[in-house]
């Protein structure tokens, strides 16, 4: 039962704006249903927690696209996303055979969901590697991605020249790419 009567649109907007109260509402409204689905399909509570996390991030990625429109109730949509993702996860774990995977369901919007989720996983993984860089490196790379000019960054960082700022950027980026590659090798 909803503790506050938020509409589906309010819930979507709350997710996009990262409103904590609304996020709590998602848990109150939808977590147990998805948990039950996971528990009754070879999963445990930890899997349910992780899956719901992923579902919210996928919904966020889709919802923040300007022309996104819900074609069903939000709960139904979330449940569909969770089913696609869990199906894919079970396939990865080889808990279900290739034949058992509902390929038709995956093709019917499920593939896109899986792709968004995989990209989210990569982005968060890269972010985790980024967080391990030095504070200066993080700041320089962030300023670049935020669109600051070389001259502005040189001034903000107090570097002696723009060339130094450029070199600093490339060194930091190389360091980040190398740490990502190294971590990926460990994972593989």
């Amino acid at each position: 039962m909803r503790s506050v009567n938020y509409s589906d649109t309010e819930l979507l907007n709350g997710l996009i704006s990262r409103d904590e109260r609304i996020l709590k509402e998602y848990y109150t409204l939808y977590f147990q249903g998805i948990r039950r689905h996971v528990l009754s399909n070879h999963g445990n509570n930890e899997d349910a927690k992780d899956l719901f996390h992923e579902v919210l991030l996928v919904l966020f990625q889709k919802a923040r696209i300007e022309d996104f429109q819900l074609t069903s109730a939000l709960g139904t949509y979330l449940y569909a996303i969770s089913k696609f993702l869990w199906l894919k996860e079970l396939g990865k774990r080889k808990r279900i055979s290739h034949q058992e995977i509902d390929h038709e369901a995956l093709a019917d919007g499920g593939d896109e969901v899986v792709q968004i989720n995989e990209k989210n996983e990569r982005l968060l993984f890269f972010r985790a590697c980024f967080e391990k860089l030095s504070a200066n490196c993080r700041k320089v790379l962030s300023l670049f991605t935020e669109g600051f000019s070389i001259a502005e960054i040189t001034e903000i960082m107090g570097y002696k020249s723009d060339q130094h700022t450029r070199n600093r950027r490339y060194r930091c980026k190389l360091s980040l790419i190398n740490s990502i590659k190294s971590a990926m090798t460990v994972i593989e």
Partner: protein
Amino acid sequence: METTRIIEEYLDQTLSMEERDAVEARLASDKDFSDLIALHKEVNESIGDRELIELHHLIEKVSAEYLRRNRKQEAVIKPILYKKFIIRIAAILIIMVASGMIIKTLFFDHVNTEKLFGKYYTTYEADVISRSAPSGTTTLDQAVLNYTNGEYSEALNLLDALVQQDGKNYLAWFYKGLSCLETDQTGEAVHSFRTIPESWDSPYAEHRNWYLALSLLRQGDITDASQILSGISSANGYYDRQAEKLYLKLSD
């Protein structure tokens, strides 16, 4: 670092025309290089996407709070549910045991007493010489005759009339009890036999006691039946041995 510079400037679209053409030519033929550019692009996206990382951290926070609260609730609810479950199981067991006892009492005990009744009961042999009704006989004689001939309904009609006329006609009550036993009116039989006083000074008194005990046995009233049987067995009368045997069986 030179490759990094080229890739970053390619993505920033700040490469010279010549360098850009070289990158695009390599992209078409070198998959590793193409993958590396894709990686740089996504890493930049990751660094720039503050919203995603903010939401990711917020979800972690809300999820942890929600699950902690839920666990607490479960920790409170589970013992209550467990207690309720135990109480329910106990209640079900009590009901089952009680039902078993009731069923045993109603059916199996009844069957046993009925069996014993069948084993020990024989139709009382009335003290009549003639089985046809001589002229000048009394109503009681006629009733006894009917009883002896197995005409129990007729006997009961006459006996009912007699006890209505004279409630102290204990011999009529006695035969009424016997007739009731023959017609499976056990409750009425008990009532008839009990109407006769304990102190009934009659040669029929012992018979009354025996048939009353059997009537009670048939009703399943083992306590009262046993008490009467005990009295009969210690009186050294006509039924003493049968009464003792039956008493012992009921005492098992």
